[in-house]
């Protein structure tokens, strides 16, 4: 194309031609730029703050103090390591129970039955409902004197429990709430996976005389493995970062004995209660590395896996 002929083309046509040629980035760039801007700057800044003694206000000039924040955090057996342990216990406990129960429910609802639409809608409710509402609801249910939980214990002939009022029982109780809230989500993801499986391998195994458990363990489960991994990944990310439930039921610091203080709650307190930005940033960087490590471990064996 010579310059004269391109001059003859009206500007709108040239613009449209340019847009069509560059549509790949024209379409992708705004969303990517928006997200990258909101991530890169804060992460860079957090990295910087983690190496300074920033405290009180981020406007106050902070001194560069090298890795001492990291050393302080990593040797802190008072708040940091217990928070790491609680994060691990909460995430692992909730995830394991949700997987087992979710799989059981998915298998239970797999083959069609009358009223299945209503059953599926009703199990959708726990995890689409606002987490703050769910947390409030369980706070009242587990209220030792007037709550529904101790009434149910009474019907079952069991002694009433202190639930969230007892530091020792807090974490298991909160794991229970998380399991109640998100088992349906795991079940629905697994159910979607089950419905795409071919019938033939299961049929063949049945004709060969395999029992229910054998058919599940050796036929269904291996075929379902990719879907299970997706469910694990999604739940692990969210469980590690659980905030709403813990903050609404136990407040800042995770209760008077920090019994519900996970890393996320700990960092929130450091940032917005103590304004201890340097230390908070160091904890955040460590927390983020932990999440990446978990993700890496989970996707390690899946070559070419997409998130």
């Amino acid at each position, binding site marked *: 194309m010579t310059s004269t002929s391109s001059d003859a083309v009206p500007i709108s046509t040239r613009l*449209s031609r340019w*847009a*069509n040629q560059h*549509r790949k980035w*024209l379409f992708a760039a*705004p*969303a*990517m730029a*928006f*997200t990258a801007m*909101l*991530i890169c700057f*804060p992460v860079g800044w*957090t990295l910087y703050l983690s190496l300074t003694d920033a405290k009180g206000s981020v406007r106050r000039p902070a001194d560069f103090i090298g890795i001492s924040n990291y050393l302080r955090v990593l040797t802190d057996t008072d708040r940091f390591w217990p928070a790491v342990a609680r994060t691990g216990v909460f995430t692992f406990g909730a995830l394991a129970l949700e997987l087992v129960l979710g799989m059981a*429910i998915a298998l239970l609802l797999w*083959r*069609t*039955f*009358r*009223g299945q639409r*209503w059953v*599926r*809608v*009703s*199990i*959708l*409710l*726990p995890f*689409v*409902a*606002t987490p*703050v*509402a769910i947390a409030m609801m*369980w706070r*009242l249910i587990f209220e030792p004197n007037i709550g529904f939980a101790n*009434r149910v214990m009474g019907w079952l002939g069991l002694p009433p429990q202190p639930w969230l009022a007892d530091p020792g029982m807090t974490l298991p109780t909160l794991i229970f709430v998380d399991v*109640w809230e998100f088992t349906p989500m795991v079940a*629905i*993801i697994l159910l*979607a*996976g089950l419905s795409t499986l071919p*019938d033939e391998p299961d049929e063949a195994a049945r004709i060969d005389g395999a029992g229910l458990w054998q058919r599940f363990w050796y036929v269904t489960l291996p075929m379902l493995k990719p879907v299970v991994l*997706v*469910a694990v990944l999604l739940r692990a990310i969210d469980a590690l970062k659980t*905030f*709403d439930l813990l*903050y*609404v039921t136990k407040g800042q610091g995770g209760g008077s004995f920090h019994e519900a203080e996970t890393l996320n709650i700990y*960092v*929130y307190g450091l*940032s*917005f209660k103590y304004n201890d*930005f340097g230390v908070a*940033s160091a904890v955040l960087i460590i*927390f*983020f590395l932990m*999440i990446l490590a978990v*993700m890496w471990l989970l996707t390690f064996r899946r070559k070419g896996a*997409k*998130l």
Partner: protein
Amino acid sequence: MSTAQTASAAPAGTGVRPARRRRAPRAKAYSAFRATMIAVVVLVFVVPLLWMVMASFKTNVDIQNTAKTFSFTPILDNYRHVLANDDYLGFVRNSFVVAFLATGISLLLGVPAAYSMSRFNMHKSALVVLLARIIPGVSLLVPWYYVFANLGLVGGYGVLVISHMFILIPISVYIMMSFFDSMPRELEDAALVDGLTPIGAFLRILLRLSVPGMATAAILSFIFSWNNFMFALVLSGANTKTLPVAVFDFVSYASIDWGAIMAATCIMTLPIIVVALLAQKYIVSGLTAGATKG
């Protein structure tokens, strides 16, 4: 609800007839067992929610009365109290404004991005967007607060919309990518042969065909924005508080008035329940997008 099928109608089609006939009594027992288990599952997930709804219609005296767990005289005082006090309707409006704006703009940015990422296999670029789903929100809040406060934005709708978009764009991109992935490439080729430009083909053909996908992305985006607590907790001002923050504050400041709190949580959850009932299919397909083609 939840009546299992009888054995004769059980798993359709592929059956080995003689074997099934031999096991008929067992199959019947199994289907009764299955129906019972399904009923138990439904009860476990629904009863706590029902109990919350019932508590919202009780006086605080009745909430404390063990004898009145299920039999009580329903009252509307809690709802009247909530709707009269605390500018609650203003918080409802805030939640709607933020959720609609954030959902709309996220789709505007997310749908074309998802198309490009799917069409041109930009998996590395997609990872940038999806990284937003992994990163802990707290790590962003301090820098965001600082920047937005300097720009004079904290306490306005804008900053809430931006922070929610940060969550919603990855959701839209994730859902729409798997939607575009499943769309045959020939559709676009045919449109090009017919003389449309690539962008024309996207706007006139592909977008129209992806309405179900966009509905899915919009519904899930709306739910996630409506439910968001942590970002609004830090970034909202007295006049832009969204419902979750308002309900949370209700507990911190009032002496614990459980009846009113339960009424407030019921009002907050109602729109989500309505959406879930009307759009169950879309919610399920959105949550499982990508999961089934691992």
